[in-house]
């Protein structure tokens, strides 16, 4: 299962996705959310689970542990969301404690924030990338297809596919840097 996730096996990902959604939706609808919100929260959670498995932050022991993890993250994200809306509304009074966060790990935190920001920039850049580049890069980096397979699928020869991939990466980097 971990290998399937590492390699973005779409059949496996899709089955995990569809299997776990109904339970999360039921939970969010029961707790004053809408279907649209359930979908958003669930997709966020799904990406977080995927990302944590890939980075080794979450160690998968069995398939059912993924399901439980996905449900827990969704639930926490929803509770966070409810709390944050509430938080915004009830902190109109001056709050002396607000700026007194411990600054022990401030450098580390800043570094994390910076990394997160860079990643966000890349994602935004990729989102708006021209579709030709997007297709090619998705096939290569997400679907993990070989250059030969991609060349065949796109009716190109492998050498120009390789070149095109490089140019697309440069383009992506350029846009991400501008953000």
């Amino acid at each position, binding site marked *: 299962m971990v290998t399937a996730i590492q390699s*973005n096996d*779409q059949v496996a*990902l*899709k089955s995990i*996705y*569809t299997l776990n*959604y*109904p339970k999360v*939706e*039921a939970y969010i*609808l029961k707790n*004053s959310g*809408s*279907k649209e919100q359930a*979908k958003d929260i669930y*997709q966020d959670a*799904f*990406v977080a689970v*995927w*990302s944590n498995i890939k980075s080794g932050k979450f160690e998968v022991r069995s398939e059912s542990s993924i399901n439980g993890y996905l449900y827990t993250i969704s639930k926490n994200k929803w*509770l966070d969301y*409810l*709390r944050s*809306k*509430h*938080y915004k*509304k*009830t*902190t*109109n*009074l*001056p*709050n*002396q*404690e*607000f700026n007194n966060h411990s600054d022990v790990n401030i450098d580390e935190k800043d570094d994390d924030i910076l*990394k997160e920001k*860079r*990643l966000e*920039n*890349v*994602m935004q*850049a*990729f*989102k708006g990338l021209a579709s030709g580049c997007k297709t090619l*890069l*998705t096939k290569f*980096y*997400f679907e993990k297809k070989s250059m030969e397979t991609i060349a065949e699928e796109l009716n190109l020869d492998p050498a120009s596919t*390789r*070149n095109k991939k*490089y140019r697309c*990466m*440069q383009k*992506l*980097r350029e846009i*991400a*840097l501008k953000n």
Partner: protein
Amino acid sequence: MNPNNNISQELLEMVERYLNNTMPEHEHNAFENRMATEPSFKTIVEDIKTLLFGIEKQALKEKLEDFHKAIPNISPEKKVTKVRYLYFKLTAAAVLVVAIGSFWFSTQNNSSQKLYTKYFSPDPGLATTMSQNSNYNFYNAMVDYKQGNYKSAIVKWKQQLINKPSNDSLNYFIGVAYLANNEENEAIPFLENVTKNINSTFNRDAFYYLGMTYLKNNKVELAKKNLTFSSIGNSKEILLELDK
């Protein structure tokens, strides 16, 4: 990301081989050595890593839309519009009913009370996080509320309301607490404040509990009206039962 770092095709592909673990051992070792001794090289590797991960993450996000289409539409949320439609029919029917007379009303009183008892449960309240200091008083009262000490919660919240008369959380929970404490007439003005605040998180919940308040008071028309606006919880079921 450093714009001054030019990344050649060879460099990109080398880093990719490193990240994919497809380097022969000697090359792998040399690569790691270089990262350890050359900070600017390490930065380039990190940048490329971010690029690749960003592509994967965004591509996955976009794939999820496809995945989602495979989910059968089972839950009943979309019935809201139907219920609204029903409401117009309901009011029309109710107007006739009013004309029928007081006998009907007395039976209706009974049944609305029954419905109230069947369906009412107080708002579960908010998670009490004591870390937010400025909200300490609010959450302190929330603990009372959750333990069913509605009177004590109301007293505390009302004190806070003096400084923040239009705060929707306070108005909402005071209203709900009154209702849970069987003081429905007291509940009405507080819940009404929140129903008027369409931006409030509690707006739809307030309509719901205001509807429940009127249900308890045997004001069936007002109950229906407010429940229709809430479209949460079991309001649909109650509306359907009221229509029976």
